[in-house]
């Protein structure tokens, strides 16, 4: 938005220790630091899956960017361990209250804290949403429609699949069929169970991806070593997190990543526009970062919580919440784990937990008695997670627990990933309890509805059939949930949604939301890729508007070009297979222009 002036923001190295992001990549450039007196172009609250991409794009385009992150700026060699129990600090472990008839487990199950956010501990499955996901209400009369279509997001799927980059099969038959340009991973035994079971039943499956895990080395990131610790944080640097794929480029282009900075509230000026963010710094001091534009990227619990905690005169029920929709339509996917015991050993701790799947049951099937569908995916619980699953799935404790755990190497696990629909009464509100900063914590209320129950029952039984067809002798299952979505949904109608299709809040022109909370529905695909793709799309929109980004002009529509020149080095352009679609609704075939035009 504003060109550099040399006196604005000081470049400073934190200390003389190398900051490792994986064994090969070092963050060795000085980071820019702004002061409380500076009015930066944008503050991004939460440097996770969306925030990491946003700060990188906007900094590279010359914006003065501060990313506030509640957790630490990880040095992966120093801070991360190849140990299940030792990885507890990767998650959002601060208090939240969970309730309702079917309360969600939070923490390790779905929330990250620290630069990279949830992408630090995602398993890394990166399927795209299907075209039908964007028009659920139109097709099924239930759920909600998105204000944007698959075609709007497709160019950004293709772009992020290169930037991450995603490894996967050459042909992926579901949704909008496509292929992956980086080769698939070798099959582990859990993948073999999924592929064998599906093949026996005549169900199509794919193996080796799509996952955000390198099958070949890429720049200064090594390829996968198949040790199975994806959700404990990948010390190898093979699995993508925005910490290692985008944040280094953001810092190199002058973004400040302010870690251990917990946002307390968004400040509203007299003119109805936000003026900055009040936060608690690493020392617990309350400070304020002023900014021309604020983007909240705190995910499905913390984004609504921050808006609700920012209630003020004019917005008594929460900032940007004139619709009363903030916090509502919270979703999680059905994530039942189906466990099968095999005579032959499996050793499911090896290979990435995420590496084979089927989306054969993804879409609405009129022969079934429920709308929408589910995926079946590999999972690979390590011993502690497996023991907890056996307590629930098999009723194991005492000698029974010891016995089934001694058979750990004989068990294989497959995960259901089922679409639970958005319901207004599933919501985030403020609890009476407060956190270490005195801020009210979030309360998450969650009930399953009729369609959800039917879908889970059918999906669970289907996964059990696959497990049986693969040759398991004993099959048990644990109900649970995976991922979080919703809480600040996008839509065309300001009366029933919080943001528009670009993430701009309907109420406040210079306040944006960009993360999984803005999804109106969630499909049966893991949300990580779509979160990152939408972040790149919102960044292109803001950069195209430039100085006008913080303004609002009714009826003014902008269709930004796809800015491949903002990709991190070596992820587009020469030597990287070209994109098939460059701008929304424009398809350029293999004979078309190279990305960036000059490559």
């Amino acid at each position, binding site marked *: 938005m504003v060109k550099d002036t040399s006196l604005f923001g000081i470049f400073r190295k934190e200390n003389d220790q190398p900051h490792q992001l994986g064994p090969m990549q070092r963050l060795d450039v000085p980071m820019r630091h702004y002061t409380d007196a500076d009015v930066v172009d944008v503050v991004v609250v939460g440097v996770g899956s969306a925030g990491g991409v946003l700060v990188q794009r906007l900094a590279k385009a010359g914006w003065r960017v501060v990313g506030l992150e509640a957790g630490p700026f990880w040095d992966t*060699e120093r*801070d991360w*361990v*190849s140990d*299940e*129990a*030792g990885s507890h600090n990767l*998650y959002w472990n601060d*208090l939240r209250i*969970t309730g309702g008839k*079917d*309360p969600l*487990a*939070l*923490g*390790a199950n779905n*929330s990250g804290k620290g630069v990279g956010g949830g992408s630090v501990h995602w*398993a890394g499955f990166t399927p795209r949403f299907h075209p039908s996901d964007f028009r659920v209400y139109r097709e099924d009369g239930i759920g909600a429609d998105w204000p944007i279509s698959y075609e709007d997001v497709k160019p950004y799927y293709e772009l992020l699949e290169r930037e991450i980059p995603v490894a996967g099969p050459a042909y992926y038959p579901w949704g909008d069929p496509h292929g992956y340009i980086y080769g698939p991973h070798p099959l*582990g*035994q859990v993948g*073999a169970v999924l592929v064998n079971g599906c093949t026996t039943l005549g169900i199509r499956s794919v193996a080796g991806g799509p996952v955000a895990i390198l099958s070949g080395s890429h720049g200064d990131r090594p390829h996968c*070593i198949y*040790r*199975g610790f994806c959700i404990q944080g990948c010390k*190898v640097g093979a699995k993508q997190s925005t910490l290692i794929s985008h944040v280094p480029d953001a810092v190199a282009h002058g973004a400040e990543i302010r870690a251990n900075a917990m946002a307390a509230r968004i400040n509203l000026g007299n003119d109805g526009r936000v003026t900055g963010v009040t936060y608690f710094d690493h020392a617990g001091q309350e400070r304020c970062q002023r900014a021309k534009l604020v983007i909240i990227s705190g995910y499905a619990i913390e984004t609504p919580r921050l808006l609700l905690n920012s209630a003020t005169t004019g917005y008594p029920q929460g900032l940007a919440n004139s619709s009363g929709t903030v916090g509502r339509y919270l979703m999680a996917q059905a*994530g039942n*784990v189906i466990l099968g015991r095999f005579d*032959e*050993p499996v*050793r499911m*701790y*090896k290979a990435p*937990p*995420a590496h084979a799947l089927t989306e054969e049951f993804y879409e609405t099937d009129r022969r079934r008695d429920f709308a929408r569908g589910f995926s079946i*995916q590999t*999972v*690979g619980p390590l*011993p*502690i*997670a497996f*023991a*907890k*699953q056996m*307590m629930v799935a098999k*009723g194991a*404790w*005492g*000698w*029974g*627990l*010891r*016995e089934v*755990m*001694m058979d750990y*190497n004989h068990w294989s696990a497959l995960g259901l990933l089922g679409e639970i629909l958005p319901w207004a009464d599933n919501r985030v509100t403020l609890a009476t309890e407060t956190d270490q900063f005195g801020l009210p914590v979030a309360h998450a209320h969650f009930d399953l509805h009729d369609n959800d129950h039917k879908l889970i029952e059918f999906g669970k039984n289907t996964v059990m059939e696959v497990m049986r067809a693969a040759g398991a002798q004993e099959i048990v299952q*644990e*109900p*649970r*949930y*995976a991922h979080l979505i919703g809480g600040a949904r996008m839509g065309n109608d300001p009366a029933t949604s919080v943001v528009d299709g670009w993430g701009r809040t309907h109420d406040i022109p210079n306040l944006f939301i960009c993360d999984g909370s803005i999804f109106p529905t969630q499909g049966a695909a893991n949300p990580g890729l779509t979160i990152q793709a939408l972040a790149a799309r919102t960044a292109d929109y803001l950069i195209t508007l430039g100085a006008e980004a913080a303004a609002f002009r009714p009826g003014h529509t902008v269709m930004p070009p796809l800015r491949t020149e903002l990709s991190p080095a070596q992820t587009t352009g020469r030597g990287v297979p070209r994109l098939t679609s460059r701008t929304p609704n424009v398809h350029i075939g293999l004979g078309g222009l190279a990305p960036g035009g000059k490559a």
Partner: protein
Amino acid sequence: MNKRKHRHADLDAELSSPDLDCQPIDPQTGQPLPLRAQVGYYPGYQTLRQQRFWDAATRDVVMRRMHEVPPIRFFTLAEARQLAAVAARIIPQDDRELAYRIPIVPWIDERLHSGRIDGYRYEGMPADGEAHRLGLQAINDIARALHDKDFIDLTPPPQEGILRTLHDDNPPAGHAIWARMPVQRYWMLLVQDCIEVYYAHPFAWDEIGYGGPAYPRGYMRLQHGQPEPWEKDEVRYSWRAPKWSVSQEYTPLGGGHDTITPGQEGTH
């Protein structure tokens, strides 16, 4: 930090009577199996032998877990002793030689002392530390109602019977406490806390044939459950829980009269 003695004398009292009645039996002969330094089906497999192939940060975390067992600071000594007796039935270690038993209570105590939580609390549940304290009181209430003794003064068979009532979501006493805290939420908290300690320990990894830390070396044999060159093939032996035990029956959590409580661990 000083290297502490591997075990706690105070808590050992609860675990140190090698009573033959508590050991698993050989189903063929009906005789108790001898105590083993290494239980499980992977004799001679020791993850700690691989530690020079681990990265420094991981080695540091695992070796501190092995050798720096923390002191009891959250619980009173009486509470810690009772919890040790409870943990000894939730994850019995009567087949292990004393020197190879995994200390559980000190690490639960350490978690509660440092205020570390899993990032959420169920509506209607007290904070984790209070839940543990209330749970121990309720367990004693049941022990007194059924056997006229404190839990710690009972032998393992009635102790198991008491815990089984929690697993079944049908405790016969302690109702004033259960009115403040759902039985099943407490039972899951208790069992999960024990699991998190036991299966984080290298002795437990050796028992189940799990590879343990694997960076930077990684794995090369991914299919058919093949062991790496440094791993061992399985050598199974038959065993059954002691005859009086009810904890090897795999009855549904919550007694099977309700829908299953969802799991709480992250997998995907």
